[in-house]
């Protein structure tokens, strides 16, 4: 127990310590989070009328971001499967970053659905009976509450346990984490399937009422998630002492390659079905792609998304993206493209026109946008803080009984202390291999 406190205390100390760039980044994120909190306070006082939503478009940016982030959380599975099922070597050292991303993503998901509530003080009504009136199993929203919180717990536990064992320099006990890792694979698929069912179960909304939604969600999640992780890993190896081989990036590149192709294929399939012989339910897709009766608020967005996803897939298929510069560009395009396509491009057209044929467009307000920015900033804040503590544990510097760095011992460029290898660490070329890899 004493060791656990020490683990937490030293991790916290690690989070509070850093060079000026770290402080600037975290302060910036904190300021944006506070701006979001300020905007949310305004919304609490005046109601959801401070957003651009209406009875016609009753869900907007909050739910769009929520949907996207569920995918980001689920994407960890694209690293967990290769590592724990196929014993993939290159991804082995980086799988934990996917699990940590899942934690930050779920926190953001929960915040996005919370800020969307008209009466947030009544969330306790969701408690199971006798306290609340949790509508399980009928409501897909009740399923979502269960799977999202479960997924948060599983990932926090697995990543926390492995980091703690690493900190103690102990071999993790397989029985204590492998079952949860395997559970997390099924669970990751479940969070995004349930989120898709939340929409595709609604017969009232023809745009969502399509059996292709759950597969599309998974494909887009496995595009944007691993692409985002590639970008994160690039930053980790640029700014920290943790060495990540190009092979890991290229393996994730393979994942994004396949996923983005499937994602665009499924989108094209749906596009074809809606527009080849357009029936009265095709109006939503027409509104999204071409505008309807002079209303075309989403047209520039969706074509931008498709264009940059097209560039992303072209880059990913070309050998050029074996070079990190082009890979990064492709990943940025893939993430932004999917964010538009499955966020705004999926949520909003379902409401336009409304079930009685009225066309009322949706434009988010500044206050609403600030809340979204605030939640994102807070998510990045959490993810950075977790990584700040996790990386030195993974390099072996932050550990029980380790000799922490001192100013005299010297710093690497960028204020990062040289890692201190304990017994059992052997440098191998440019890459450091740690003695007790998680998962083996």
């Amino acid at each position, binding site marked *: 127990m004493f060791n656990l406190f*020490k683990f937490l205390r*030293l991790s916290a100390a*690690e989070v*509070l*310590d850093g060079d000026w760039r770290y402080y600037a980044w975290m302060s910036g994120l*904190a*300021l944006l989070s*506070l701006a979001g*909190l*300020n905007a949310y*306070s*305004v919304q*609490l*006082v*005046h*109601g*959801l*009328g401070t957003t651009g*939503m209406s*009875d016609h478009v*009753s*869900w907007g940016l909050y739910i769009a971001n929520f949907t996207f982030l569920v995918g980001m959380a689920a994407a960890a599975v694209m690293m967990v499967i290769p590592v724990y099922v196929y014993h993939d070597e290159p991804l082995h050292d980086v799988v934990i970053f996917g699990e940590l991303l899942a934690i930050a993503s779920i926190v953001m998901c929960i915040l996005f659905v919370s800020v*969307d*509530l*008209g*009466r*947030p*003080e*009544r969330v306790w*009504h*969701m408690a199971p009976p006798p306290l*609340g*009136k*949790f*509508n399980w199993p*009928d*409501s*897909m*929203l*009740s399923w979502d*509450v269960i799977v999202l919180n479960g997924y948060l717990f599983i990932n926090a536990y697995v990543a926390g346990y492995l980091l703690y064992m690493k900190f103690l320099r102990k071999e993790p006990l397989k029985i204590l984490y492998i079952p949860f890792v395997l559970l997390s694979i099924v669970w990751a698929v479940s969070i995004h399937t349930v989120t898709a069912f*939340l929409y595709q*179960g*609604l*017969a*009232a*909304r023809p745009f969502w009422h399509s059996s292709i939604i759950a597969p599309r969600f998974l494909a887009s999640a496995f595009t944007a998630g691993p692409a985002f992780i590639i970008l994160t890993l690039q930053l980790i190896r640029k700014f920290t002492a943790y060495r990540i081989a190009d092979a890991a990036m290229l393996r994730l590149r393979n994942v994004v390659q396949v996923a983005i192709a499937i994602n665009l294929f499924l989108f094209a399939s749906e596009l074809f079905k809606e527009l080849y012989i357009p029936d*009265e339910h095709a109006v939503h897709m027409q509104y999204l792609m071409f505008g309807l009766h002079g209303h075309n608020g989403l047209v520039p967005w969706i074509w931008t998304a498709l264009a940059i996803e097209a560039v992303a897939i072209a880059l990913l298929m070309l050998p050029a993206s074996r070079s990190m510069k082009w890979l990064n560009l492709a990943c940025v395009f893939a993430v932004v493209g999917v964010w538009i396509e499955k966020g705004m491009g999926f949520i909003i057209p*379902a409401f336009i026109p*409304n*079930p*009685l*044929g*009225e066309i009322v467009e949706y434009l988010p307000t500044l206050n609403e946008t600030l809340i979204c920015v605030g939640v994102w900033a807070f998510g990045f804040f959490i993810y950075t803080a977790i990584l700040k503590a996790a990386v030195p544990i993974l390099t072996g510097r932050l550990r*029980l*009984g380790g*000799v*922490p760095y*001192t*100013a005299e011992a010297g710093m690497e460029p960028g204020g990062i202390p040289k890692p201190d290898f304990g017994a059992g660490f052997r440098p191998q070329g440019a890459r450091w291999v740690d003695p007790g890899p998680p998962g083996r």
Partner: protein
Amino acid sequence: MADEKDQHDSPYFHPKPYGSGVTRRQFLAVAAAGAAAAAAAALSPLKDLTQIPTLRQFLQKHYTELTPEEKKEILGRISAEVREKYGVTPHLTAQPPLDGVQFAYALNMGRCIGCRKCVYACVNENNQSRDPQIHYISVLEMEKGAVNVETSNTDYEGQVPKKGHYYMPVQCHHCEKPPCTKVCPVKATWREPDGIVVVDYNWCIGCRYCAAACPYHARRFNFKEPYLPKEDLNPEMGYLSNRPRQVGVMEKCTFCLHRTRAGKYPACLEVCPTGSRKFGNLLDPDSEIAAIIRDKRVFILKQERGTIPRFYYFTDV
């Protein structure tokens, strides 16, 4: 143990020189103080929060779980709130559904002229917000030769009825299989034994999933604090129907249950100048509604959605 001693003496717990001569600890202290001040500033809009629920309101149970005493106490409390806000003592009831009654509504498409009197009678009866305006009834102006709502228009103006058009008012269809109640995560909306779909305004969390699930665009959300002038308040009110609503909750047509459960017609029916609107008990074979279902050409809107509405459209012929 020597190692652990070292830990306590580690530089994490000692000031470390920074470029400007400020120690890390000093920097963090200033940063923490700044963050606290900034957080307080960020939360400052909350000082305008006027309606903070009391503990009693906060902990109020679901309507279906209230004992008769609790119901009485809550009705008393809400009456007092209405009196304080509107200066009128309301007659607030919580009438239970009647045995042997299944309510249904029928609308004569051949007669409706699209005058929208029902829309405003509904607003007056049900104490809806006047700003922003909340309407339970949408009257669609349809093109002749189409039953497709996509080609309809709700924004028509001028004299009605217009040539080449017919009119189709739509409100809550009180479905036998309501998707709205199925999706609600907290069972804040449900179907009563007499077929009326209701909302407990004190239980709704405001997620608007029901609005997404409704194929008839029948649900209305209080995006802002509802505004109702004192002189417009209807003091005859029901707990599950037209008592004043709160910001952040869903509402909808309740077939005027505070009237209909007391043997009266809904307000929209009474005001209709053409007699297009019919309402009654399906289980009573002598009722007008039962005769219409039996003898007229009846159809339901969006039958393919599988909701089995209790709101029928019919023509005379």
